[in-house]
């Protein structure tokens, strides 16, 4: 270092010390290059998270492993790069299990911060459902593997007084996780453990007894929402003139009607609702046949028979937006328990071999008026294209209503801790 050199970032020229780390050089000049694993004093840099990827002299490179040199041209904020960074952070979310409302680090988390910074609402990737553990064995800490993004900071930087590693990766590929040496972990002082927690960019390392002032459910954002009167956004009195009523249809396929009950749970606000929407085909109104196109169709339950399939396909044809509501529609739910058993076994157990059936005189019902059973339960999206999913068993009324309002009128929404019905 010493010499000053000229570099260009997004078209602007800057003079920076030669050999300086690009992330630092940019930061000193007011340009933020997102980074999750970069830690100034770790040398050489880790280069694991890749969120700092920029284009340097036309090549994709992580900025944190670049030393600036004279004439270097860097692109930081092109639409392509912004999207790439966003997708990398989304990958971390789809691979882990980040449930911020119940996370000790929430509000103080680099990953969460980065997600906000990049404008992430949902990930473009399906959730990967990695089976990960929460490790309670260490003495000072708890390791919540679901939240680890494998930045490698703890591996490199958490050492005992005699220089031994406390953390090291185990396994490889998507099975990689941070292993803990329980013997060495014991030797960490309280301060060292807290330092480890603070060094972790996520809420993966939690020190027992010191991480949270307020228990879950009692924190500010558990209790209060910006949307206090969420269902009264369009009160009768000042409904915007000429606002079109939206048309809604619902169906219950292989479900228990629980999701429909949940829809009704919005209680008195139903009265407001009829000002805003009209029903088409739906068991709620007992309208049996479609009479026209609908803006939105809500489907409860998966498909267990040919009639379900027909109904679902009809909904697809008639609705602009189709939503799977509840676990049964989303992945099959309770009825899908029979998917592990051949259909013939189910039927024979029910109609031929069961204790209450009459000896010899038994038949498996088959009649042209009866819907034909499918070999297994199919979630709705395996039959037709589903645009959105509302999980929960059943999803709470306000969850459904907020989602529907969002889909129909683009209204922003957030869901309170108490409104989740996922567990």
């Amino acid at each position, binding site marked *: 270092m010493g010499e000053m050199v000229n570099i260009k970032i997004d078209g602007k020229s800057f003079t920076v010390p030669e050999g300086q780390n690009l992330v630092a050089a940019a930061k000193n000049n007011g340009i933020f290059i997102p980074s999750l694993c970069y830690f100034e004093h770790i040398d050489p840099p880790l280069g694991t998270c890749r969120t700092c990827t920029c284009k340097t002299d036309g090549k994709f490179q992580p900025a944190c*492993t670049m030393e600036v040199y004279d004439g270097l041209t860097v692109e930081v904020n092109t639409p392509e790069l912004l999207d790439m960074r966003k*997708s990398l952070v989304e990958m971390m979310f789809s691979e882990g299990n980040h449930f911020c409302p119940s996370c000790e680090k929430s509000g103080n988390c680099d990953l969460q911060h980065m997600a906000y910074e990049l404008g992430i609402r949902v990930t473009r990737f399906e959730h990967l459902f990695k089976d990960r553990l929460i490790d309670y064995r260490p003495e000072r800490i708890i390791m919540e593997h679901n939240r680890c993004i494998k930045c490698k900071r703890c591996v490199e930087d958490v050492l005992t007084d005699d220089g*031994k590693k406390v953390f090291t990766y185990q*396994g*490889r590929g998507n099975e990689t996780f941070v292993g803990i040496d329980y*013997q060495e972990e014991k030797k960490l002082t309280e301060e060292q453990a807290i330092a480890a927690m603070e060094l972790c960019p996520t809420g993966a390392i939690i020190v027992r007894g010191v991480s949270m002032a307020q228990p879950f459910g009692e924190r500010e954002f558990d209790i209060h929402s910006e949307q206090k009167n969420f269902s009264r956004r369009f009160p009768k009195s000042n409904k915007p003139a000429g606002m079109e009523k939206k048309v809604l249809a619902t169906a219950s396929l292989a479900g228990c009607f629980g999701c429909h009950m949940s829809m009704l749970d919005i209680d008195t606000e139903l009265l407001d609702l009829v000002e805003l929407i009209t029903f088409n085909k739906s068991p709620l109104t007992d309208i049996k046949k479609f009479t026209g196109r609908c803006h939105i169709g809500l489907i409860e339950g998966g498909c267990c028979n040919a009639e379900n*399939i027909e109904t679902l396909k009809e909904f697809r044809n008639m609705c602009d937006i189709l939503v799977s509501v509840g676990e049964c529609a989303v992945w099959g739910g309770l009825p899908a328990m029979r998917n592990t058993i051949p259909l013939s076994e189910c039927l024979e157990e029910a109609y031929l071999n069961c204790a209450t059936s009459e000896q010899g005189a038994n038949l498996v019902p088959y009649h042209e008026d009866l819907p034909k059973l499918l070999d297994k339960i199919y979630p709705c*999206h395996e039959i*037709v*294209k589903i645009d959105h999913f509302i999980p929960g068993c059943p999803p709470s009324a306000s969850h459904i209503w907020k989602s529907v309002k969002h889909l129909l009128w683009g209204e922003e929404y957030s869901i309170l801790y108490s409104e989740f019905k996922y567990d």
Partner: protein
Amino acid sequence: MKELFHLEPARSSLLNRLWELQHQHGFISDHDITQIAAELQISSVEVEGVVSFYHFFHRQPSGKYTIYLDDSIIAGYKGYHRILEAFERETGTTLGSVDRTGTFGLFRTPCIGLSDQSPAALINFRPFTQLNVIKVKDIIQQLRSGADIDQLYQLPPSNVCNTPYSAMNIFFRSYTPGSAVRELAKCQPDDVIRFLRETNLSGRGGAFYPTWKKWEACRSYQADHKFIVCNADEGEPGTFKDRVLLQDLPGLLIEGMIISAFAVGAQYGIIYLRGEYGWLQDQIQKTIDDFNELGLLGSNISGIKGFNFQVRIQLGAGAYVCGEETAMLESMEGHRDEPRTKWFYPVEKGYLQYPTIVNNVETLCAAARIVELGVAEYNKAGLPGSPGTKLISVSGDCNKPGVYELPWGITVAELLELCNAVDPNFIQVSGPSGECISISEKFRRISMLDLLGKPDLRCGGSFMIFNKDREIIDILLNFASFFKQESCGICTPCRSGNFIIERKLEKLKNKLARQVDIDDIVNWGHIIRSTSRCGLGKTSCNSLVMAMQKFGGYFDTLIDKKENGQIAGFNMDEALADYEQYKS
């Protein structure tokens, strides 16, 4: 097991220690780990981290006989499933477990470098090839009745397919130990580097980096010690050319290393041999011993004052990413083989931070031949700008799988003709990380001239041929699973991205996908490629994206092309078939 060099720290012996334990007990116990950790004065979890990286190391007993079945796509089409079933039946195990008596352990492993003799398996790291159900039954029965495993297998034939061009062979011509090294007495290190430049020799490990540049760079660094590492990890599925060189011409390889040492001023050489090729180790070691006796290794080699060079073998333990040069260095140092950042190149700071050359087996053999034959003779074969010959491992749907030595410039069509390919449709060139071509591209030449913008095809060393009955999606899915499992897991796009891609392909295979899913694959492939840390992630989606573009018509049959919101994979008749049997 050969001793380490005196300057290597104890930690470099970690892999060898673990191998010893694995061989002795069939697994590595907690006690072993604590003990090794204490000896090396590192924490146990660090040792565990290394053990868990390699799939040939087990933490639970892996059976008196440990069977590894090759699950590459080539094996898949040659009867993998039948063989698997036969092994399960005969041994009483299920895949991934050990039978109740602890006699047999059955596991799968990616390509073991025997795709020309597929289906194949390793049993206690000895190769068993061309398996069929009867053979499996026989092998297991014999083992049960106490037969000596060494009596049950033969070394696989090297399967070099002679070509009409054999007059111009570079590699597979007669070989006399020392004929290249003796030429060194007549030249200077700079001459050697010049020879390489004049023959355009470039890295045969797949990256085609000019070898002379690498050697010259390494030569320019001053250091007390330098290393030559031979990359004999050959992990790319469908590639087995290095196996044949190691088997037939180990001496030529060692001469290549000696020449490299001469050129850059190195004193130590290490052959990093993949664990799957453990059965070649004794033979290579014997060649090293012979060379020592002949004065071709050791001190004042070939009478050159002060030219001292020694070679040892390091056995890998099953991890594709070890083939990445910096990961290999990590592995040799007794760390988890996570590729390094490109903060330093190995030529500057490599093994133990000393300047290090890492070259592929074929590159080193070619270097030896160049010095032996001279530039003019070498350049007679091949094309101007792409001289010499190339070894290509051919496997899949053809009648003559094996290793072909071909002059650069041959066309795909000619190669298909030579190997007697049957109805070829989809060809995977240079392994899963390479590129795929369709038969309509058969008139492309195979050469290095693509670097000059010609439409030629650069081939790293393998050619997997698939006929028109093969489902392309199955091939791609096999590759995707391979990358998912073999990713070192250290960087986000590769660890998580390859998993996401595999899920998408499963969706496509099950016909649950739509056009947007195909677009996603192409876009995400670009993201993974652009942001990954090492070559594994940078190449894992190459063929996939190419296939989407080249075989669009095929993929259209897997999706809901009409975009009417119906999912293509659902078939009402099939879904109702079970119930229809109750129709009276």
